[in-house]
């Protein structure tokens, strides 16, 4: 089965971000979506640590450790961007002002529950950051993940077994083999990679899937 690589996935997510959108890209893979936003269009990247209008990574010599993104990587500020404190930054999320947020996940349920902060392992040090705020705050939550774990289990599930980040909060799931809509009415397949059939997808996920 053909699988999209991470670049292709990031490119695919970027396609669904319209000009003028206020967008928060989660730590890790979602951050790379920024690399595929069209140039010459205004897309507004929000960073939880108080930045709106975040630009690309700086040249080595321009790195400023007081201008970093949520993943603590150096970034730049676009002309027209601005800074604000954590209260205002999370008001932007919680208050529904962010149009789209893109997050990674351990699991997403067909009803849009998200698990992406904790494996539930007994001895793990828990850390949540802004994950729960992003999950419930943005108008649309896009998840970006491989459909299967390394051991072949589906990460799109009927019910999450990992500790939840938010309930019924995910709108779409972008995976290496297809794009899914999730929500109150369950999961529907929006796109599949070439050569994959709905039957195969249902089989590998163990879910009753329909086309959208």
């Amino acid at each position, binding site marked *: 089965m053909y699988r999209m690589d991470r670049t292709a996935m990031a490119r695919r997510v970027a396609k669904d971000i319209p000009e003028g959108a206020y967008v928060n890209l989660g730590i890790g*893979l979602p*951050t790379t979506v920024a690399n595929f936003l069209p140039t010459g269009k*205004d897309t507004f990247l929000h960073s939880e640590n108080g930045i709106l209008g975040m630009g690309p990574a700086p040249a080595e010599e321009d790195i400023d450790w007081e201008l970093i993104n949520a993943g603590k990587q150096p970034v730049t500020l676009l002309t*027209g961007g*601005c800074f604000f404190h954590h209260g205002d930054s999370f008001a932007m999320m919680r208050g529904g*002002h962010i149009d789209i947020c893109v997050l990674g996940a351990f699991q997403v349920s067909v009803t849009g529950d998200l698990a992406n902060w904790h494996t539930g392992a007994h001895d793990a040090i828990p850390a949540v950051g802004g994950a729960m705020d992003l999950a419930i705050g943005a108008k649309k939550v896009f998840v970006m993940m491989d459909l299967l774990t390394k051991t072949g289990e589906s990460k799109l599930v009927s019910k999450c077994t990992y500790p939840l980040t938010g309930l019924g909060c995910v709108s779409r799931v972008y995976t290496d083999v297809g794009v899914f809509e999730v929500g109150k009415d369950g999961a529907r397949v929006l796109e599949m990679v070439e050569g994959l059939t709905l039957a195969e997808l249902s089989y590998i996920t163990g879910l009753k899937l329909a086309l959208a």
Partner: protein
Amino acid sequence: MEAQRLESGRQTKKGRGMINKIVGSMREAVSDLHDGASIMISGFGEAGVPAELIDAVVEHGASGLTIISNNAGSGEAGIAALIREGRVRKVICSFPKMAASHHFDARYRSGELELELVPQGNLAVRIQAAGSGLGAVFTPTGYGTLLAEGKETREIEGRHYVLELPIHADFALVKARAADRWGNLVYRKAARNFGPIMAMAARQTIVQASEIVPLGALDPETIVTPGIFVNRIVCTSPALTADAA
């Protein structure tokens, strides 16, 4: 991880897109008002009142409005004009009684106008709660008074609080000193007042700015209202718009 690296210089640092929230006229700025809309209006006394936008609302003709503002109009212009013309169903404010609030007084006494009187700080925090997505807040203001009658109260750590709900609005009309095409705003002196918090609490925030400046002219450290909270901007001196936008 290679794939997780942010690329450098892929977007130019200049925002070269075309997003432009500036509209050409007051009339256009308020064109999608509707009957029954709730409208927040910035201002304290005369400072920060978006007078020209309110004129445009009067002209637009929408009625059955709920007005959320600190005062309820004075004299013949602004909110007073909306009330005089019978467009307002309800006012949510802290201080309706002014030297020249005769239009409010008349409609209120005749029972045509509903008043929800809110202590000023509760008005502020309820607007903030709406803007920041809170479901409700426990505030100490008003506890034990007429204005908390019938409201849920709770003692927390030995102090008494009243549960207050957020105030959302369909529109906010805000006056700013300067704006850029992304909607970033700065204010002037005590005309700032309710502007920044109302801009966060409304579904559509419409701004009248004394000046439109080019993107980048406002210092990113000193922008008071980030553009994310602003939908439309109109300049009170249209000549200044053409120069900058």
